[in-house]
C-alpha cells in the first residue's frame, strides 16, 4: 500500500519540521528518515523535498548552512527556527483535530480496528 500523493503533500511540512526538530539534518538523511519512519510507504521524491525545504527557508521556518564533509564535498544542513517550531506546533494541533475526527467516525461506525490511524496517532 502506497500513501496517495495528496496526502503525502499535505503531511510534508509537519513531517520535515518534525524531523528537523529532532536534530539538524540534510536532504538525503531527511529522505532516509521518512522512509524509515513510514516503512517505505511514503513515496517522497527529491522534487518534493528540496523545493519544500527551500520554501520553508524562504518562510523563515528553517535555516540552512553549508558544511564541508569528506574532502571537497559540501553539504547543506537545515535546522528548524523558532518560527518553524511554532508552525510545527500549529500543524500538530490541526493534524490532531483531523485524526481525532477520523477516529471518532471510524470507531463510531464500527470500522475494523486494523485501519485505525496508527501512523498518525
Amino acid at each position: 500500500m502506497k500513501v496517495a500523493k495528496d496526502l503525502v503533500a499535505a503531511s510534508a511540512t509537519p513531517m520535515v519540521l518534525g524531523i528537523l526538530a529532532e536534530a539538524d539534518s540534510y536532504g538525503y538523511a531527511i529522505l532516509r528518515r521518512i522512509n524509515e519512519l513510514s516503512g517505505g510507504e511514503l513515496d517522497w521524491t527529491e522534487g518534493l523535498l528540496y523545493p519544500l525545504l527551500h520554501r520553508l527557508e524562504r518562510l523563515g521556518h528553517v535555516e540552512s548552512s553549508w558544511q564541508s564533509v569528506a574532502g571537497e564535498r559540501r553539504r547543506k544542513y537545515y535546522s528548524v527556527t523558532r518560527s518553524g517550531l511554532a508552525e510545527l506546533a500549529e500543524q500538530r494541533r490541526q493534524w490532531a483535530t483531523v485524526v481525532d475526527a477520523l477516529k471518532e467516525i471510524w470507531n463510531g461506525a464500527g470500522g475494523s480496528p486494523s485501519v485505525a490511524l496508527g501512523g498518525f496517532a
Partner: protein
Amino acid sequence: MSEDRQDGLEAQFSQWRHYVQRRKELRTSDADELEDHLRGSVDELVGVGLHADEAFLVAVKRMGSLDDLSREFAREHSERLWKQLVLSGDTDGPARDTPRSRRDLFAMIACAAGAALTVKMPEILGKSFEDDPAFYGTNVALLVLPWLAGFLAWRRRASRAVVAVLVGLFAVGAVAANAYPLADESQSLVLTGIHLAIALWFVVGIAYVSDDLRAPRRRMDFVRFTGECFIYYVLIALGGGVLVAFLFGTFAAIGITPDTFVGQWLVPCGAAAASVVAGWLVEAKQSVVENIAPVLTRLFTPLFTAVLLAFLVALAVTSGAIDVEREALILFDLLLVVVLALLLYSISARDPQAPPGLFDKLQLALVVSALVIDVLVLLEITGRITEFGTTPNKAAALGENVILLANLAWSAWLVLGMVRRRTPFAAVERWQTAYLPVFAGWAWVVALVFPPLFGYV
C-alpha cells in the same frame, strides 16, 4: 573500489552536473545539494554491494527525471525565471546568500558615493576642470579606481599584505601623475594619462584576484570581468544619456536650463559612480553576463577576419605602401588589441574539453592575418624612426606593438598546435594569463619611466 572505477564515477558525476546546470531553474547551489544527495545514494548502494557504475545508474533513476525535478524547483523559485532582476537579493552559490548580497549592495553604494565625491574633491579644494583640464586627464583614474579596487578587495576579504600592495601601487600612481614637471601641451601628459589608467586597471585586477593570487583561472575571470564591466559601463552611460536628455527637455519646458547641475555634478559624479556600479553588477550577476562578451566574440570574429583578409588582398593587388603616420600606428595598435580581445574572450568562454573546431581555425586565420598586417606596419615604422628620431608617442606605440605582436605570434603558434591536436587548449589559456603582467608592466614603464627618459617633452 578501484582507482579506475572511481575516475569513471567522477566523470559520470561531472556529466550529470553538466546536465543539471543547463537548467535555468536549477542554481549552482541546487546542483551542489542534489549532487550531495546523489553521492549519498550512491555510497549507500555501493555499501550494499553494487558496483559504482550500477549504483550511479540506480541512484539517478531514483532521483527521477530532471524535467520533473526542475519543474518542481521552478514552481518554488519562480523568480529565477527573471534573473535580470537585480535587487531580487539572491545570487548563485551557497556562499552568497541573501544577507551577503545585501551587504554587497550597501558596500557598493558606499563606494560609488565615495567615487562620486572624490571626483568633486579637487574642485572643492580649488582645482576646477576649466582651470586645469590636464590635472583631470592624468588623475581621473586615480580618483575613481581606488573605490572599485576597494570594493573588490572588501568583497574578497583581501589580506592585509594585498591591501598594503594596493595602497602602495595607487600611491605610486599618484606620484607618477603629479610629481613630474610636465607642461600642459606635452605629449607625455596624454601618454601618462592613458597608461596610468591601464596600469591602475591592473591594480584593480590585483584586488579582483586577491582571494587566489596565483590561480590562472582567477586571472581569466579578471579578463572576463574587464569585458563585462566595459559592456555594463557602456549600457549605463547610454541610460545616463537618456536621463540627461529628459532632464534638459523637461526643465527647459518650464524655463530652467540645468546645465550647471548636469555638467558639473550629474555627469562627472555619475560617470565616477557608474564604474563602481558596473563592477558590482558584474559581480552580482555573473551568471547572466558571462555570456555577453563571448557572444560578441562569436559574432565579430568572422567579420574581423573577413575585413583583415580583404585588407591584405587589397594591399597585395594595389601593391601600395602603408602610409604610416603616428595615427596609423596607433590605429594598428588598437587593431591588435581588438584581435587580442577577440582571442581572449573566446578563450575565456571555451569549454576546455571541447575538440578543436571550425571556430578555432577561423580564430587562427584572424590572428595570422593581423600578424601579417602588423609586421608590414612595423617594417614601415622602423624605417621612419631611424630616419626622423623618436618621440615618446612613437616609442610607446612601438613598444605596445612589439608586446602585442609577441603575444599574438606565440598565441598563433599555440592555436595552430591546438587545431592540429598537438597542444592542449590549456596551453593557450596559460600563455594568455601568464602574459597579463607584461601589459601591466609596460603601462607602468610608460607612466613612470618615459617622462624622465624623454626629458619631460
